[in-house]
């Protein structure tokens, strides 16, 4: 009985000890000069452009030219 309990305790201790080996590092390792954050997506990826870069560029270009009042009034 005593031996059986000892085996159970040893087994649990072994399981817990090995579980510690699987722990992932929780400290961020910074690489100097390299962006460390989440990746961003291009502005034309989401709706309403859904990946259509040409259409997005056309929209931006139109808005750019809207700032030129010489063209707006002529």
């Amino acid at each position, binding site marked *: 009985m005593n031996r059986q309990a000892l085996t159970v305790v040893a087994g649990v201790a072994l399981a817990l000890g090995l579980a510690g080996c699987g722990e992932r590092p929780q400290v961020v390792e910074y690489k100097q000069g390299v962006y*460390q*954050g989440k990746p961003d997506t291009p*502005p034309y990826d989401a709706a309403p452009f859904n990946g259509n870069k040409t259409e997005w560029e056309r929209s931006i270009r139109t808005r750019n030219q809207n700032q030129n009042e010489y063209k707006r009034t002529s």
Partner: protein
Amino acid sequence: MARMKFLCDAERCIECNGCVTACKQEHDIPWGVNRRRVVTINDGVPGERSISVACMHCSDAPCMAVCPVDCFYRTEEGVVLHDKDLCIGCGYCFYACPFGAPQFPQMGAFGVRGKMDKCTFCAGGPEKNTSEAEFKKYGRNRLAEGKLPACAEMCATKALLGGEGEVIADIYRERVTKRGKGGDVWGWATAYGRPDAPKQPAAPAGGAKS
């Protein structure tokens, strides 16, 4: 597409603060944080000039260089953005920025500065485009909607131009040619100019000396 830039025409700015209001309203900016502000030089003196100032999204951004956790990145369009999940609010970027752009909310429980906030060129941040999370952290992503920054588009006198660098430079050039004055653009060289070339040592006068 060329890189995005801001240009403020001091000859036209009437200090109406429309750009500041547009920015605040568009991004639901909290009290105490000013992503954009209007600075008046020689206030009250004849010939005073006003300039609208915010992050200029510099070509060689000093904030990126000094950030100890490297939370800054530059998008394909040349917009300088940062990841607020990574920012530790150290304030180094504030000391490095020649335009005083980085802002720190001070309304926290302990009265200390929080994570840095700055102009995003209305391009949001590293969250899903036009999502609720992006709006809460970084404000509205107008670029993803095919629009330009609210401040520039709202400017009544078109003193503040924002968009593709080449296009806004052309607009400004045409304007200066027509009016025949005011060709200097405040902050343009600081933000987008090339770093100074290393100075050559002056040749000693009267021959070489030991």
